[in-house]
């Protein structure tokens, strides 16, 4: 509550916090305009949830921020001291890791490949192992260090990827449907970890999600994205605007305001 009030007061400036500004962002691939005129402003410590229909450009937005697809407009990260742009460290947890599950790569290998210059096929640096273990401890996944990646469950893999995304501690954490394929216990653990991170570190989080129940409980701000920002604001406000939501095929809200909405035609 406090936070959203804060936002209203100093929209436009960064309020002496670091912040992420996405201004007039557009993505066109071939002849298809996937995103246009997207403006999002995120304060440090905020969790911004992005919802929207399939094909609305949610994943493309993340890809643009990662520099994987070319975009027009601006994406700037401003540090706390002033309006000085810095190159943010971005942590990324992909939606589902479409990898070769037979690959003989352990969790430890993944950390080595990410964090060390020493080739993972030749060495297993002790310092990296220690670092990986500490990172995994944060997400209760220490015991996974020597497991093969392909042998992890969906939830275990997401936690490993979260631990990886947090080392080094990012300025901006991008979570793309991070809970697909997680059971209820894993889900709680995941969101608790994310909530904890926000308190302990100065980082902003962008979360793409279809799980409106979790979004309304954890997000500071919700952005409804369909080619451009249709509406944005605190969860109560966005989810309260039923007519807008219905336009985008988001239904299933109860009159008492409990959010258990689902995207129509969504398969998970």
């Amino acid at each position, binding site marked *: 509550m406090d936070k959203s009030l804060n936002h209203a007061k100093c929209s436009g400036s960064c309020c002496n916090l670091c912040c992420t500004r996405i201004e007039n962002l557009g993505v066109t691939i071939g002849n298809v305009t996937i995103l246009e005129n997207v403006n999002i402003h995120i304060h440090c410590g905020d969790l911004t949830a992005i919802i929207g229909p399939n094909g609305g450009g949610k994943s493309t937005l993340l*890809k643009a921020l*990662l*520099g*994987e697809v070319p975009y027009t407009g601006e994406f700037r990260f401003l540090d706390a001291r002033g309006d000085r742009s810095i190159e943010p460290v*971005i*942590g*990324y947890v*992909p939606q589902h*890791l*479409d*990898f*070769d599950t*037979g*690959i*003989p*790569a*352990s969790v*430890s*290998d*993944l950390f*080595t*490949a*990410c964090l*060390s*210059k*020493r*080739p*993972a*096929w*030749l*060495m*297993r640096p002790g310092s990296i192992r220690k670092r990986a273990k500490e990172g995994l401890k944060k997400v209760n996944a220490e015991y996974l260090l*020597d*497991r*093969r*990646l392909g*042998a992890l469950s969906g939830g275990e893999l997401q936690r490993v*990827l979260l631990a990886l*995304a947090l080392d080094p501690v990012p300025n901006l954490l*991008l979570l793309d449907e991070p809970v697909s394929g997680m059971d209820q216990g894993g889900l709680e653990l995941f969101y608790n970890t994310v909530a904890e991170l926000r308190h302990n570190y100065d980082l902003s989080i962008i979360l793409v999600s279809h799980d409106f129940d979790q979004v309304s409980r954890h997000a500071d701000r919700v952005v409804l994205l369909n080619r451009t920002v249709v509406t944005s604001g605190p969860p109560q406000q966005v989810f309260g605007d039923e007519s807008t939501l219905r336009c985008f095929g988001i239904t299933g809200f109860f009159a008492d305001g409990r959010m258990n909405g689902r995207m129509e035609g969504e398969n998970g």
Partner: protein
Amino acid sequence: MLQIWYDIAEFLLPFEWIEHNFMKNALLAVLLITPLFGLLGTMVVSNKMAFFSDSIGHGAFTGIAIGALFGGLQPLLGAVLFSVVFAIVITVIKDKSRTSTDTIIGVFSSTAVAVGLILLSSGGFNKYSSYLVGDLLSIRPRELLLLLISFVAVIALWVLIFNKVLMISINQSLAASRGINTLLVDILFTVSIAVVVTITIQWVGLLIINSLIVLPAAASRNITTNMRQYHFVSVLISMFSGISGLIVSYYLDTPTGATIVLIAAFVFFAFFFLRKRFSQ
């Protein structure tokens, strides 16, 4: 310098087959080539690039044809240049286009072979048919030096870029979020395959070179759970098949390359049936 190797080989291996210099040359070639195949093969298999490395072989064949037309007696330089360009073009198109990788590779591969066949047919095809089967025993001292150089270069490259290749193999977006230039790393990786394949194709042969890249790594995957084991076992299988294949082919008078591939295939099936015992 080669004399030192001859002395060492005769001292360490007091067997009949090593007495011939061509066998000593071939053994040295095997010791230089097979570790490279074992190393590069791991990521070829993990990236599902078996078909790609096969088409690189086809590109090298065309390169040799072009080299023969323009370069006269020593077609190797032309071949290496051509297959490097071939590898870069496929990688860039794969990156920019949404067509399935298999289709793109298929298009390029068959085009390359067709061009190669037409070019070679004008200059007398028989002269170059040795590239199809290859002859390891024909290797000469000067070519061994070339192998040594590529050996050192590929190992150095593999030390420098392997972590990035592995990240891309696991997930491209994840790699990009770590600031990895995925296209550049992909190109370096495919170019190194192209160079190794093109240089060795005249001794191993277009028809079986791909099996030598794929088999050791594919066998190793069955029984390993991390990257060090994966590479170690893959290189070991590759070298074992290479050395034993060379010796067996000497006594049985069979084509060397094919004998090596058969042994590697045997190892693959043995590990395939043993895999449950190692699975984790």
